[in-house]
């Protein structure tokens, strides 16, 4: 083995020196560098998206607990190379003169938040700005609406527990408050060093401790592994990505799209490798025959050549990974103005994967053509026409598809997507093979009936005699167009979806706690100020106490027992109309007047294991209410519209104490109107979603950019593959062209003949590519991205034309070389 490895090495050096390997090496280099670049870029972008979610959460990781963390956990955290900050939240009553108000107090350490920024203003409802500060000792910062409620101004004092504080600023945005409706009381923030002096926290107090953690990805992984086993049941570790429903689906979508891009890029690289290794093998037939003549064994030669390719793959992997890294660095630099200011560095995994991709692509796509070398007979030295039969298309692509399936499944972690694309590719290959067989058979029949014009005869004859070659070329063209079109198509759908997600005038304020008596005046207020609002939703708060007659906490599994919905009051609404039909995923909506039914959000099914037909009992203001689950809805949480986990019929809830909820859009310039609103309706709580919305919007914009950058890279790679596919098929055409010219054929005849052949192949590939693209996009849209699918009619017209022109043009450029050279030079 070591001898053949040494021979492999010598062959590699010799082939390299004689310029035999550059095409294959280039394809491999492309496979490795493109997949490395995409892997690193998407890894960094994902980390950065995670980081943006982290900004909303104020940290990369949060450990929540009802009490101070245990000594062991605290010490372990201190010993880790991560940053930490402490936050304590609790409800309390604050006094200012005669006024008392229930607040949601929050004590923070001076390095809060670790990720993202707070915004604050010098006066309530005045223009705010980003701040790096936190309240100093002896200071409190208040949410704007708390100022009129307490009748205080900046500089006044108020009392919290046993301590007196000076009102310093108005908080307009806390990153980690998010868009939830859990802490509805207005916020009061103070320095954690003042906590003990207030004397509020006693054993048994209802407190929410949060330890915020931030660090680099690898530090966090180490931290997570260390800390998780130490946590008690009441101490919970939250990852940035787990936290926010509204951002998560966008992150998932983008990750899936980048996954799709990787699949397409690898498919392209694979096609390039398959074609160039075919050429590599074919150019070795004579040499193999001579070596067989010299007594070399079949296995010995296979070992040498496979060894040569593997050595090459390993050698190409290193610069390939480096070029990939450079490429993504370039992309990041190019997009510096629009990408997040700080992109976290990727881990080493994308680079390892990129390198391995080269080797696996080579084996998957390059081995089958190489196996033909086994069939080279030594007799070829005497009879050159003894060429091994072409590698079966299925042996080439079967192996390729299998290796791609495994590689991509591992790489993207997305089985459904990978399987869909592989199925699409398989279908396309089958169609092409069938078409070539049936189509050429009919051409053959016609040919024998009446001769075709000379300009077409040679081309048709060649296609007939080399069906394997014809299929291989068509497959390469088609799959390349398909990969490009698919990414383009899904990108268009994705962008549309993102645009729909946050349309203009998305409600940026939520008004909650509107009393029934205030509903009409509130609506009048909005109307008189020209503010566009949604309809008002009644909101009833109740606790889930029983599931199917059993106490709720006993009815669920141990893991489900920790879920929030069992530990707090849930917001319910009544409505006799579903918000939209599309959101009901199971069951049916009730008729007006029905009672005893409930519609729940899909995540409740997942988190509590509740399903259609189950009975849920709630305790609402001392009254027990039981209802059967008759429908399940799926809510788009990222829409920033009022959404509810539980909806009941009007007759079930009417009469129970309810407050009302409304959301509305207020342009930034009209904010002063809020002062008036709060003055007129002092009990209403106002949530400002503007900052959160713009954060999500920024993230979506960046995602769009990433998607566009990837599309561009893919289109370029696709063009390269096309050019090399055309180039690879030029060998025989060059000889044939020279022969025709030496027989007196004119340049025009030659151009018409050969360009026409490429043109027709391009058009044919375009049609099949559209078919394959549509097949895959149905699958991807419905199964993976959960987007609606519509046929892309425009693609049916444009792609065949573009592909015919592209292939025709590349062919023409290649053929020009034939025309320019004297035929003798080529024939020699």
């Amino acid at each position, binding site marked *: 083995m070591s001898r053949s490895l040494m021979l492999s090495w010598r062959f590699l050096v010799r082939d390299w020196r004689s310029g035999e390997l550059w095409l294959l090496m280039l394809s491999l280099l492309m496979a490795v560098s493109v997949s490395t670049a995409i892997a690193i870029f998407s890894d960094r972008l994902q980390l950065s998206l995670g980081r943006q979610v982290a900004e909303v959460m104020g940290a990369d990781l949060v450990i929540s607990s009802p009490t101070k963390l245990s000594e062991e956990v605290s010490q372990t955290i201190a010993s880790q190379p991560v940053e930490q900050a402490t936050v304590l939240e609790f409800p309390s009553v604050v006094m200012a003169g005669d006024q008392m108000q229930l607040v949601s107090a929050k004590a923070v350490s001076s390095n809060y938040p670790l990720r993202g920024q707070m915004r604050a203003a010098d006066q309530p409802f005045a223009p705010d700005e980003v701040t790096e500060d936190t309240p100093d000792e002896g200071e409190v910062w208040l949410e704007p609406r708390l100022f009129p409620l307490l009748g205080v101004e900046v500089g006044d004092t108020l009392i919290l527990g046993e301590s007196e504080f000076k009102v310093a600023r108005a908080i307009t945005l806390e990153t980690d408050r998010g868009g939830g409706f859990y802490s509805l009381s207005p916020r009061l923030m103070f320095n954690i060093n003042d906590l003990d002096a207030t004397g509020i926290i006693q054993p048994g107090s209802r407190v929410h401790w949060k330890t915020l953690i931030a660090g680099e990805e690898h530090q966090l992984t180490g931290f997570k592994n260390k800390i998780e086993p130490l946590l008690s049941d009441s101490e919970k570790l939250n990852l940035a990505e787990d936290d926010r429903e509204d951002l998560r689906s966008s992150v998932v979508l983008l990750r899936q799209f980048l996954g799709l891009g990787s699949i397409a890029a690898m498919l392209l690289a694979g096609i390039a490798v398959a074609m160039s290794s075919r050429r590599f093998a074919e150019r070795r037939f004579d040499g193999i025959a001579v*070596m067989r003549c*010299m007594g070399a064994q079949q296995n010995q030669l296979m070992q040498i050549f496979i060894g040569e390719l593997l050595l090459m793959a390993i050698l190409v992997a290193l610069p390939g990974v480096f070029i990939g890294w450079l490429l993504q660095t370039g992309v990041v630099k190019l997009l510096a103005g629009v990408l997040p200011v700080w992109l976290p560095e990727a881990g080493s995994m994308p680079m390892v994967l990129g390198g391995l991709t080269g080797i696996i692509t080579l084996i998957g796509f390059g081995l089958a053509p190489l196996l033909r070398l086994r069939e080279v007979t030594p007799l070829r030295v*005497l009879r050159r026409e003894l060429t091994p039969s072409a590698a079966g298309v299925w042996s080439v692509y079967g192996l390729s598809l299998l290796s791609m399936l495994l590689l991509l499944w591992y790489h993207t972690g997305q089985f459904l997507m990978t399987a869909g694309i592989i199925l699409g590719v398989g279908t396309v290959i089958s169609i092409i093979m069938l078409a070539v067989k049936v189509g050429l058979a009919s051409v053959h029949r016609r040919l024998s009936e009446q001769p075709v014009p000379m300009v077409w005869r040679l081309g048709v004859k060649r296609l007939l005699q080399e069906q394997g070659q014809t299929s291989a070329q068509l497959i390469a063209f088609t799959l390349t167009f398909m990969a490009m079109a698919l990414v383009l198509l899904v990108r268009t759908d994705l962008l549309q979806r993102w645009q729909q997600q946050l349309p203009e005038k998305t409600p940026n304020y939520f008004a909650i706690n509107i009393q029934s008596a205030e509903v009409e005046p509130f609506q009048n207020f909005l109307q008189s100020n020209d503010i566009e609002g949604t309809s008002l939703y009644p909101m009833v708060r109740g606790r889930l106490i029983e599931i199917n007659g059993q106490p709720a906490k006993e009815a669920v599994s141990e893991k489900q027992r920790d879920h929030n919905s069992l530990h707090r009051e849930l917001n319910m609404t009544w409505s006799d109309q579903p918000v939209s039909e599309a959101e009901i995923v199971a069951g049916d909506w009730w008729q007006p007047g029905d009672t005893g039914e409930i519609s729940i959000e899909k995540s409740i099914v997942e988190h509590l294991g509740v399903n259609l037909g189950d009975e849920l009992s709630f305790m609402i203001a001392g009254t027990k209410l039981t209802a059967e689950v008759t429908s399940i809805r799926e809510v788009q949480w990222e829409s920033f519209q009022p959404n509810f986990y539980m909806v009941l019929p009007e007759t079930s809830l009417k009469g129970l104490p309810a407050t009302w909820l409304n959301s509305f859009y207020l342009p930034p310039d009209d904010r002063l109107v809020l002062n008036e609103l709060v003055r007129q309706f002092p009990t209403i709580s106002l949530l400002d979603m503007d900052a959160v919305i713009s954060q999500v919007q920024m993230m979506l914009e960046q995602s769009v950019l990433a998607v566009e950058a990837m599309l561009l890279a893919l289109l370029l790679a696709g063009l390269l593959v096309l050019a090399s596919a055309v180039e690879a098929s030029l060998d025989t055409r060059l000889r044939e062209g020279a022969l025709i010219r030496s027989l007196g054929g004119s340049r025009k005849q030659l151009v018409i003949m050969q360009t026409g052949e490429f043109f027709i192949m391009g058009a044919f590939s375009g049609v099949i590519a559209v078919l394959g693209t549509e097949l895959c996009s149905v699958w991807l849209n419905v199964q993976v991205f959960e987007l609606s699918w519509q046929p892309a009619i425009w693609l049916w017209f444009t792609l065949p034309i573009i592909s015919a022109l592209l292939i025709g043009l590349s062919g023409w450029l290649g053929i020009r070389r034939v025309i320019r050279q004297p035929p003798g030079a080529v024939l020699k």
Partner: protein
Amino acid sequence: MIISTGSPIAVSAQSLIKTVTARSGSLTILSGLDLKIKSGESVAIIGTSGSGKSTLLGILAGLDQPTQGEVALAGNRIDHLDEDARARVRADHTGFVFQSFHLLPNLTALENVMLPLELAGKESPQTHARTLLERVGLSQRLTHYPRQLSGGEQQRVAIARAFAGQPDILFADEPTGNLDEKTGESIINLLFEVNRENKTTLVLVTHDLQLARRCQRVLKLTQGRLEEEVEHSGAAK
């Protein structure tokens, strides 16, 4: 396991039949051919185009199998062996020179000559190959690629390569077919010289009677059988 017996008969064929099946029916190329070539002997096989000379050479050298009959190379029956086993016999006993040289285009002259030595795992292939190339007069052309060499030079490289493995039997298929008369003459002189120095058995296939007559025996292939040509000068020059 194939054991060379050091037989005085280098090549033998008995009742050799080769038929090929074509669309128009089956075609008999060799019909019960017998042949014995002694060690160290030089034999030319002549015949018209399409008479089956190359087919016979292929079968005698173990590149192809007969439809029927026995073939032995250096005392080893090869007609019933599979391709890999025949390759082992070839590696131990044969060398080849072809009409179209069959040099590997991406290897230099030196590397082309080193190739059989490397494949056989021989020690210091480079030194050996260098000596051989010097012997055929190409010491100045070691690092040239075949495309940089003239036809005559390429055939010299091929001769050096053929003798690299120190074969017992050299098979040459129209070695001057692609060369002009003058170059062909010098190549043939070289071939016979080196052959003599190495005491190799030479089996030469050609349609050139003049060239054939430089061999000790000339056999003519007609209608699938060999006939001894009586009139020739008889001795290799």
